[in-house]
């Protein structure tokens, strides 16, 4: 494959809440296995953009593509529901607040998707869950309920839960922002490991050092537009836009 199509492609994405336009025409192309970090001040539209990719937010205009399939197809009712559920199975999402299912054990949190949506047998799902728990360093925690885990452990379970669906892309919305500082590294480590395995990832983060280490491409957003983008070296070390410089100065000083 010489002319590879991008894994994720956004074309002129716009999103308004009422009269407030929060995304003002965003274009982004993410090649297979690439890691893109999205940075920017609070309210700049990072979460909205990320959530548009799997249509947790419905965009007002523009096109979203996943591996050659249009995500926001103009289907109606049931047909759209079926379409989007299939698309979402191929995209893992990790939330700032973890959003583990509190009434299910760690095992069940990870197994329920593959069993109910992919028809995996209980044994196969269990085996996959145990492999993923080993991968995120939580072997033996399968029987615990989420509220017995630390924040860092919860987020690693959430990553395992998403990975259990064997997604093509992983979306992270400030995965470490709700964590105590000493728990951030254990989650970052898992994300770096995924990067090493060439998982395609979109990462919204406010950790500039992590973004610099892990990403191939950095997007700086402000006020619903992409102000500056490029390699981490370009955007984080040698920004050309004033807004980027001001943002980085503020963020690196504390």
């Amino acid at each position, binding site marked *: 494959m010489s002319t590879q199509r991008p894994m994720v492609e956004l074309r002129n994405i716009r999103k308004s809440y009422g009269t407030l336009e929060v995304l003002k025409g965003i274009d982004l192309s993410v090649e297979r296995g690439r890691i893109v970090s999205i940075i920017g001040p609070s309210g700049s539209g990072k979460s909205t953009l990320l959530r548009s990719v799997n249509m947790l937010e419905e965009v007002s205009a523009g096109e979203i593509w996943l591996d050659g399939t249009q995500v926001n197809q103009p289907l109606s009712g049931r047909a759209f529901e079926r379409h989007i*559920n299939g698309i*979402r*199975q191929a995209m*893992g999402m990790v939330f700032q607040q973890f959003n583990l*299912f509190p*009434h299910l054990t760690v095992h069940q949190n990870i197994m329920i*998707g593959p069993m109910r949506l992919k028809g995996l047998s209980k044994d196969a799902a269990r085996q996959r869950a145990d492999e993923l728990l080993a991968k995120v360093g939580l072997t033996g925690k399968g029987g615990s309920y989420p509220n017995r885990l630390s924040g860092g452990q919860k987020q690693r379970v959430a990553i395992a839960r*998403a990975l259990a669906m064997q997604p093509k892309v992983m979306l992270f919305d400030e995965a470490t922002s709700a964590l105590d500082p000493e728990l951030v590294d254990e989650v970052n480590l898992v994300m770096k490991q995924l990067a090493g395995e060439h998982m395609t990832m979109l990462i919204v983060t406010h950790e500039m050092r992590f973004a610099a280490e892990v990403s191939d491409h950095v997007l700086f957003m402000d006020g619903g537009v992409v102000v500056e983008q490029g390699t981490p070296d370009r955007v984080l070390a040698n920004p050309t836009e004033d807004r980027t410089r001001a943002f980085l100065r503020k963020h690196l000083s504390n």
Partner: protein
Amino acid sequence: MMLDFSQVPGYGGLILTGLLWTILITCLAGAVSILLGVLAAVATLYGPRLVSLLLREVAFLFMATPLLLQLYLLYYGLSQVGILLPAFWTGVIGLGIHYAAYNADILGAALKAVDPGQAEAARSLGFARGATLLHFVIPQAMLSSLPQMGNNSIMLLKDTAVLSVLGIAELVLNAQRAISETYRPFEFYLVAAALYYIVNLAMELALKVASRRAEVVR
């Protein structure tokens, strides 16, 4: 006056049969009240606007009028138009619907209180709207409303006594039968009260254990 329980053992079979019917009715009507309560709450919250308004009104009617009247309407009212329900099922259904209204109220609030992040997480995995409700939102709402729904079930247990007016041979009616033969109302009503009390204690204990388990899971 002297209390004299010497006649009670002779009617032990009758009293215990009444108790068993009371427990059976509680279980059946309790199941109806929870099932219908969940359905009503879900339809009120997520159904079309008209359905939602209608259900809210119906639920209010069931809570605003006496249970006894509702039972009479179901039993005698319906028989007047040719629908003859057996007394037992009239009682189970009437009691079940009455408490379904209360359960729907509680569950509606609990459903609204489930963190929206839960549904988002399920949807992001690829679960459909209905499956998200069924596997994630409803179970969590039921767990969080367990104490209140449990209390409703205990109220329901006590209200099974009302079914004696339909001639259902539950605990109160059978106590009355014993009394009509022995002229010992004090003794038999006290025995019945003690039995309600014991079942009540058992239910409260079970509820406490279940609530403590539910606490672990939230």
